[in-house]
């Protein structure tokens, strides 16, 4: 109980500790101790702004998801750069597609939407008012349904695992 | 005098912060805090004046850094007198405002104390850039106070006031920057040492910078042609604020006196008395424009505001002559015009608030309550402002006329001062006659809610007039002090020695 009061968001505290170490740019005892103090203090100070404790799944899933996204970013970047540089703009088949969602946690939806945007070629441009589907704009999507399926299988499934 | 030198700056600053922190919801406590602090300030500044009268200038090095590297504040006869003047004026103003005005908006007392802090800081500092900072403190506090209670006319005037002063602040930085770029220092005493040593090739830049700085001070001092902000601002500011602003123009005058007698005074070589050829003609025109405005005024506040411009013209004429006699005469007039202007604004407000819908418009209106008493007060304040005997205005003008006798501009100065005095007499005579006499020919009596006997405001107004009486009766000891002050301004060695220790040899130091 005591622990819960002192560490309302353990994962956040961990993240903060990491960020602190990144900030001071050195991995030393002093940095870690001070970082730990801050990592406990700041969530306490700002706990008002974190009304609920979001559920976050296992570390393995997170790592896997991160690596997949990174790879996708790299590949898609090259593809899209090619589109921009070498395709005539008229020949681009830009369109908006709808991605219906199974996710319900706002954190998960936001992560998915963010992933979609960060992987080049697709941008999340809106949510439905009840947050049950995403509106995604594709730069060049001859096969819109393929994009939707890709998103749902590659990202949404894994996020569901992590967040819910 | 040790730490006491910094108290006139710290006391109001801490008091303002305390008011914001602890008592911002309780107007009565705010008043108690504010008035107590101001009374204490009067006591402190009075003892500083006594000290300055008996001692050489004394420096207080903030942060214990040696001059010219850190910031210093300096207590000499001039700065002591100015902070004492500020605190007395402040006491009158805060008493006046504590009856009702302070409730018309938020944070009056905090802003007021900050304002005192800024003004005192500007008077005490011995550093050009720190002067900028205190200018900004006093300006932004004055913006807040000026807009206190809002209202369309006030907001319009406030906009002009603020924009002009912001432009002025930009110019201040340009001026200070150029001076630093050429001399490598910000300390005023050090500046006095460095200016004569500036290389010939850099002199043009130094002169240009110093003159741009002069223009900024002239804006504050409401000198033609940069006086335009004053009438609207003073006429539309809340009365106690307008009264407090009587010291604001003096900050400009003070800065001119300080910087251009210390840094660009007698010992400045080629730059000696740099300011004189610019401000003397401008001051003469200012006096004329001010009194033309007095004649033209259709509202009492406008009339008072223009009379303030006129008084600044008179004051700067005597400062611009830059002789010991003219400066002591000018300082006497400075003391006088501060109290006279403040008294007029306070009394004007008492009149206007009793005239209901007629306000301060100079038109015929029915009789109002307490018009007899207010007529007496107004009459006294008006003759003081117009420079009629027996009050200090007359003595001040005599001193200035006497000091201007040998100037190349002497005839002009005499002519303008005397002719404008007549304009002042006519203007104030018309105004008083309309406000207090003509009302007898209108039907009825104006009833204004809550216009009973306002004890504090009347005390405050009488206090300002009382200060004029004191200036008159004790003219001799006061002018003695002022002559000492002028002498100190002319012989800068004491000041420089106080700040820099021994006066450095002719080699550029550090």
């Amino acid at each position: 109980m005591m622990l819960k009061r002192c560490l309302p968001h353990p994962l956040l505290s961990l993240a903060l500790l990491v960020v602190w170490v990144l900030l001071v740019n050195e991995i030393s005892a002093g940095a870690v101790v001070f970082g730990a103090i801050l990592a406990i203090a700041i969530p306490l100070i700002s706990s008002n702004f974190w009304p609920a404790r979001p559920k976050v799944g296992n570390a393995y899933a997170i790592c896997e998801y991160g690596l997949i996204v990174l790879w996708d970013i790299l590949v898609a970047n090259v593809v899209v750069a090619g589109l921009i540089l070498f395709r005539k703009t008229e020949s681009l088949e830009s369109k908006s597609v709808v991605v219906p969602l199974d996710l319900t946690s706002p954190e998960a939806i936001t992560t998915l939407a963010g992933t979609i945007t960060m992987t080049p070629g697709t941008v999340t441009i809106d949510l439905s008012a009840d947050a049950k589907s995403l509106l995604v704009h594709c730069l060049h999507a001859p096969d819109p349904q393929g994009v939707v399926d890709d998103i749902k299988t590659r990202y949404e499934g894994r996020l569901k695992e992590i967040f819910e | 005098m040790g730490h006491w030198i910094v108290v006139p700056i710290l006391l109001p600053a801490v008091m303002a912060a305390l008011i914001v922190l602890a008592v911002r919801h309780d107007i009565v406590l705010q008043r108690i805090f504010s008035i107590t602090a101001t009374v204490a300030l009067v006591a402190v500044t009075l003892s500083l004046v006594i000290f300055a009268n008996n001692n050489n200038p004394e420096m207080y090095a903030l942060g214990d850094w040696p001059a010219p590297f850190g910031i210093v504040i300096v207590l000499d006869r001039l700065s002591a007198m100015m902070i004492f003047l500020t605190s007395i004026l402040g006491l009158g103003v805060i008493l006046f405002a504590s009856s009702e005005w302070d409730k018309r908006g938020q944070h009056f007392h905090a802003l007021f104390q900050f304002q005192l802090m800024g003004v005192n800081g500007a008077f005490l500092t011995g550093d050009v850039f720190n002067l900028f900072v205190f200018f900004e403190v006093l300006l932004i506090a004055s913006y807040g106070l000026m807009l206190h209670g809002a209202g369309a006319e006030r907001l319009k005037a406030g906009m002009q006031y603020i924009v002009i002063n912001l432009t002025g602040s930009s110019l201040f930085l340009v001026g200070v920057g150029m001076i630093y770029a050429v001399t490598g220092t910000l300390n005023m005493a050090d500046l006095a040492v460095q200016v004569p040593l500036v290389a010939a090739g850099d002199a043009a830049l130094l002169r240009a910078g110093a003159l741009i700085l002069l223009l900024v001070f002239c804006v504050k001092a409401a000198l033609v042609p940069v006086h335009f902000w004053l009438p609207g601002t003073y006429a539309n500011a809340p009365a106690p604020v307008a009264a407090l602003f009587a010291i604001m123009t003096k900050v400009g005058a003070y800065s001119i006196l300080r910087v251009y007698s210390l840094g660009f005074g007698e010992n400045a070589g080629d730059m000696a008395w740099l300011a004189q050829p610019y401000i003397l003609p401008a001051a003469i025109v200012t006096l004329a424009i001010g009194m033309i405005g007095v004649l033209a005024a259709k509202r009492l506040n406008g009339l008072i505001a223009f009379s303030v411009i006129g008084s600044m013209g008179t004051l700067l004429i005597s400062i611009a002559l830059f002789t010991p006699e003219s400066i002591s005469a000018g300082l006497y007039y400075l003391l006088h015009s501060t109290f006279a202007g403040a008294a007029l604004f306070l009394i004007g407000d008492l009149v206007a608030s009793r005239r209901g819908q007629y306000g301060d418009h100079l038109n015929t209106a029915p009789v109002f309550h307490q018009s007899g008493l207010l007529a007496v007060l107004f009459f006294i304040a008006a003759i003081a402002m117009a420079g009629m005997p027996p009050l200090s205005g007359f003595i001040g003008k005599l001193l200035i006329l006497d000091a201007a006798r040998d100037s190349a501009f002497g005839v002009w100065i005499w002519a303008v001062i005397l002719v404008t005095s007549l304009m002042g007499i006519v203007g104030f005579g018309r105004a008083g006659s309309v406000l207090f006499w003509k009302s007898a020919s209108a039907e009825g009596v104006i009833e204004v809610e809550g216009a009973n006997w306002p004890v504090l405001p009347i005390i405050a107004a009488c206090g300002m007039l009382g200060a004029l009486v004191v200036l008159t009766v004790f003219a001799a000891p006061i002018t003695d002090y002022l002559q000492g002050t002028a002498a100190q301004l002319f012989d800068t060695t004491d000041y420089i020695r106080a700040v820099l220790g021994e006066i450095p040899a002719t080699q550029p130091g550090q």
Partner: protein
Amino acid sequence: MSLTLIVLLPFLGAVLPAVMIRAGRNACATATGSVTLLALILLIAKAPAVIGGEVFQVRYDWLTDLGLNVTFFLDGLGLLFATLILGIGLLIIIYARFYLSKDDPMGRFYVFLLLFQGAMVGIVLSDNILLLLIFWELTSLSSFLLIGYWKHLPEGRQGARMALTVTGAGGLAMIAGMLILGNIVGSYDLTVILQNADLIQASPLYVPALVLILLGCFTKSAQFPFHFWLPHAMAAPTPVSAYLHSATMVKAGIFLMARMWPVLSGTEEWFYIVASAGLVTMVLGAWIAIFKHDLKGLLAYSTVSHLGLVTMLFGFGTPMAAVAGVFHIINHATFKAALFMTAGIIDHETGTRDIRRLGGLLNLMPIAGTIGIISAASMAGIIPLNGFLSKEMMLEEAWHTVWFDQNWLVPLLATIGAVFSVAYSLRFIFHVWFGKTRDELPHHPHDPPFGMWAPPAFLTILVVLIGLFPAAIAGPLVAATANAVTGGNLPEYYLALWHGLTSALGMSVIALIAGALILLRHGGLMSVTSNLSRPDAKAMFDCLIVKVVALSRVISDNLQNGSLQRYLAIMIFAAIAIGLSGFYAEPDHTAGTRELLAVSPPAAIGWVLLVGTCIAAVAMHHNRLLTLLLVGVIGLIVSLGFIYLSAPDLALTQISVEVVTVILMLLALNILPKETPKESQPGRKFRDWVISIAAGLGMGGAVWAIMTRELPNSISAFHLANSKTEGGGTNVVNVILVDFRGFDTFGEIIVLGIAALSIFALIETVTQGEAAKRLASWVVDNRRSADRHPMMMVIATRVMLPLSLLVGVYIFLRGHNEPGGGFIAGLVVSVALVMQYMASGFGWTQNRMKANYHGMIGLGVIAAAITGLSAWVAGLPFLTSGFVHVHLPIVGEFELASAMGFDLGVFLTVVGAVTLALAKLSQVERMAEHVDINPEPMDHDPSAATAKVATAEKEA
């Protein structure tokens, strides 16, 4: 001592009537009278000694350096005038008790009267010309109050203002004259000045001094061409006229000419100015008096004329003429005061002062009639009354006077003056007291109460007695006075009724006969003169004042036209002009020799970007949102520039300030119009461009000149050298901010705090008046998204808050050694908080905010102050810093500096000020948009819906 008391008594006593009026009118008058009586007794006690040639003197130092001291002296001249002032004053006080009606505020009257009396006594007893000036102007002021006493009468107000203006102007001229005089002599003491006639008359400044002083005298004594104000001052109550305009104030100018006679007279200039003015005034005043229908008007012009007579006598510059002048002063005071009081009685009893409506009053009011007739006869110069005596002396002196080489001119004009004088005096006698009794008068007249006729009666007795026994009654006084006036050169003379058949007697007889003839033909003359268009002095004066005021308004309104654009243009122009004038005042404009930095490609690109952005910002400034974006870009480029040019702290600060400014401006722009109208005329644009280009060239030129020169030895070398060792930090800029120049920073955070408090105060009043109405009727002017709190943004900012706080702490802690510090940290944290407001809405965020922004501002300032004050404990000045290196296990060594406490104050103030200002400003927005505060962080929380379903399922 008692001399001082004589002057002070009326001033001190002026309090009495104001107090005593509560005890009734008699008590009030008695108190006032007692004051004057006491002063008079003190004076008369000294009279024998003064007449015996003694001079009393008393001196108190006041402003010795200027030469202004409180010094009084009493000689014959002073004695005469003081006696007149106090004696007639006493009579007037008695008279006024009965004259003033119940509705008149008597207390006020007596206060003014005593003030005036004191000022007059002050003039005649001053031994210091500056002190004299003070009393001189005081008479102008107090007479202003007395003339305007009946404030409901427009004539009274106008008359008062005119008197004040004219005499005030003269007084100002006199100030100049007196200062010159004092400088010639080297002293402002009269007794000294009076002994330096030669010095004065030899001075090149003699003529200016003379002219200026005479301007004062002539205006005060209503000499041509300044005579016009006096008749209009007659709107005052009659006691005032009788006092001021017969015996005292108008005599002040005469007094001063008499006083200065020994040093100023005797020159050509004196003769031609003074004698001519007197002569013209005498004749002109008398001529006009003949045709005045108003009794007081007639007496007023008669006064003008008699004052001219005295002036002329002094102007002759001979001792004998001076004696005559002195004697006439006494005589005129007696009969004229009596006549004014009589006129007052007539007015009081009949309700009119119009001679045409009066007649045969002698039967109805025999006492008043007797007084009036005798006094008027004296005024006409009829034997054996005192007026005859002095007029004879005047004519005798005139007979000997050569004017512009003509020996007949002055005698002729003097006689003509005497003729007119007889004419109006006789008119006063015959048209008022004799002839047909009128029935249509407003009141039925009869003799007034004793108290009202006794004062003039007393004076009339003097008129007769002096006439009969001049040497016995007036002789000693005249001698003493004349001795003072002539500076001891008293000629041989004797005062007597009969001097034999002299030329003067002949002129007198001619005057009597001709005067009577004129009166007989009065009706005819009247119709002739009324057809002549005479210049109306009052109309001219009024017209002059109106024109001056109108001109002032034209000048003032055209200069002060309310246009900020003009004021700014003038100010900027002035800045350019004064800067250039300074620059070109120095001869040396050699170019700098500093080696210039090479232009790198990024710098060049940055420059191109900046130029492009600036041009775009100005070109498209009508689109405000776009302008804002462009200015933001300028900020970005400037920050990059700072980094490039070795100023990382500046860059961090600039970029942080930038974003807060953007938020602020966007909040503003939602309320303000989104477009700036195109309203500038081409001419205006041209003017503005000229000024702007000049300003740009000036600034650019100045900075170019500076950057191409070597930096002089700067105080900053000390900062670099001592930052680490003495200040305990390696970031020199930060050490300067919190230590070397911490006082600047202390002021700077106060500026921020004040800004926030002012903003708060300014918005608090938005709920009142016009602003509240406008907000209530606000119409949202463009399309609004339905999504108030986009979910993605809410989630992202929630993650960013702790991160930003961490960054804030980081920036704060490292500031002393690396770029950063309390200010930037404060902005980072504020922005993080503001981001919560932006994403999750005001309601949600405010509910979660524990901090009080007001308190933070106060706390910040106090924290900074306390850190600074803690040095006092060690006996060191405010803001003296200290630092220690602390070694802790695991953590290692780190530094604790007191400057951090100061920086914490900075931090708190910044956070408090920024958040207070922005949160308060957003209140206006909510009022305008008419939307309720949404307490929820998101419009729709999908997990909440799921949770609800889950709970529902569980319950089921």
